[in-house]
């Protein structure tokens, strides 16, 4: 069971602002989904090595060479707000 307080805590971790209705809905739905995935406890995984990657590829190396990159203009083209060739965001540091 994931109660509404936990839902709000997780939303905070995920930088999501949820409405009261969404909190209620997710509390029920996430509980149902977690109940379902607990099915995995039926399988014995003691001494099993976890798999993150399904094909046998080890470290991939390449020459450390300088190559071209995107122009500043292109990089900033999608910026919601920009100023002096930089991304502009709301003020972070408080004034005294």
């Amino acid at each position, binding site marked *: 069971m994931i109660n509404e307080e*936990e839902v709000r805590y997780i939303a905070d971790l995920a930088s999501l602002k949820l409405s009261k209705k969404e909190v209620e809905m*997710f509390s029920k739905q996430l509980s149902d989904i977690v109940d379902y995935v607990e099915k*995995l406890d039926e399988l014995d995984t003691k001494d099993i090595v976890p798999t993150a990657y399904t094909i046998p590829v080890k470290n991939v190396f390449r020459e450390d060479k300088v190559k071209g990159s995107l122009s500043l203009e292109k990089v900033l083209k999608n910026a919601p707000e920009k100023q002096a060739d930089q991304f502009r965001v709301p003020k972070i540091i408080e004034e005294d």
Partner: protein
Amino acid sequence: MKLYKCSLTELKNMIEEKRVKLQDIHESISYRTTSTDPKIKAYVNKNEAYNIDELDQKDYKDTYLKGLPIAIKDNISIEDINTTCSSKMLEEYIPPYNATVVEKIKEAGGIITGKTNMDEYAMGSSTENSAFFPTVNPWGKNRVPGGSSGGSAAAVAAGMVPVSLGSDTGGSIRQPASFCGVVGLKPTYGAVSRYGLVAFASSLDQIGPLARNVEDIALMMNVITGRDEKDSTCVNREYPDFTEYLKNDVTDMKIGIPDQYFDIEFDQEVRESVLNAVEKLKKAGAKIERVSLTGAEYALAAYYIIATAEASSNLARYDGVRYGLRAAGADNLEKMFTETRQQGFGEEVKRRIMLGTYVLSSGYYDDFYLKAQKVRTLIKNDFDQLFADYDLILSPTTPTTAFKIGEKRDPLKMYAADIFTVPVNIAGIPAISVPCGFDQKGLPIGLQLMGAHFKEEKLIQAAFSLEKILNLDIKYPALK
């Protein structure tokens, strides 16, 4: 013969033999799209940048794709053309670079007709999660096309384009291919570069083709496979010419039918249609045996932990700072993040970010994520062992045919639509969905063939044979 009804291979041959002009092909495709897409809504954004009148003046003679049309799912980046992922978050986003598959298509002389609709961020099985509009299945106007590559499947099924690209994280190419009566291949993890594909679940995502026949799938695989320095998960190896495996021959091919998959309760008409195809494969000389495999329901459970965990991490980048939506009026940074994400993400995306954040949160990691990764080992080992003895494994692609728009409101019911397709992504193996019949409502049924890592050529040969053996002669949907 109407040109829009021709396959990519037929069009390629006609161009090579100078029996038709590129202009005429694109005019036919464009006419079909104009008359059909208002009903189907497969495209989010049509590419208006290319000029049909000028096509024949450019020289595509020595190229592989000869100036022929291809549609692309809207989570694959094309320079200077919106890539929205069918999300409000990226509605205005214009990529500054091309995905590697787009580069490859352009180098091969392919013309991109536009970007197709999808479930937001590829999260869904019906294309109803698009923030813009749902796509309609050409085989039934109140039916979903499947998802998340629903637009790519519907565009091909309706004859708006001969082939398209989709992406498949848990079935997102194969399930819509099955629902729309087309062929869809999910390649081995690492066979096709994902550079420029908007990330959903990085250990599962794979780009692949959809087409109206297996021949065109082979052609597209020749174009899109191969190593890419920009995607280090992309494996450095030689790929065969896949068109050489277009042989109607299943003699001595060993195919396993997993008991655990057929023990699941699923639609009777789907079961009969798949088993009918199995009988025909047997008659054609395939050796078919019952085999044992970890239950698909465990793969589904592991999938919803792994995929959401990776998604919660991948989607952390949408913060309103560098690109995409930024909520107006937030007076501090924290508020800007949360309000941007509240306004930009739809319900299913939030649900998955929440679930992923939960399973990764302190105290739960071992119980969920680590456990799921261990189950992943079990599932992968199971497949590996079977493929030591068998060439292919066969199952239905989906438990039902296309369901009604608005029918599945409960997320768990929607997730269950992927039960047969998800194990493939968990194991990183390739799989293809081929049409094997129709139900009494006239909706297409799909059959899935799974192969060992990097054995796409076997999938292509078996699927091509099945197509010839069943000889379905799929008519175009009536589009009433």
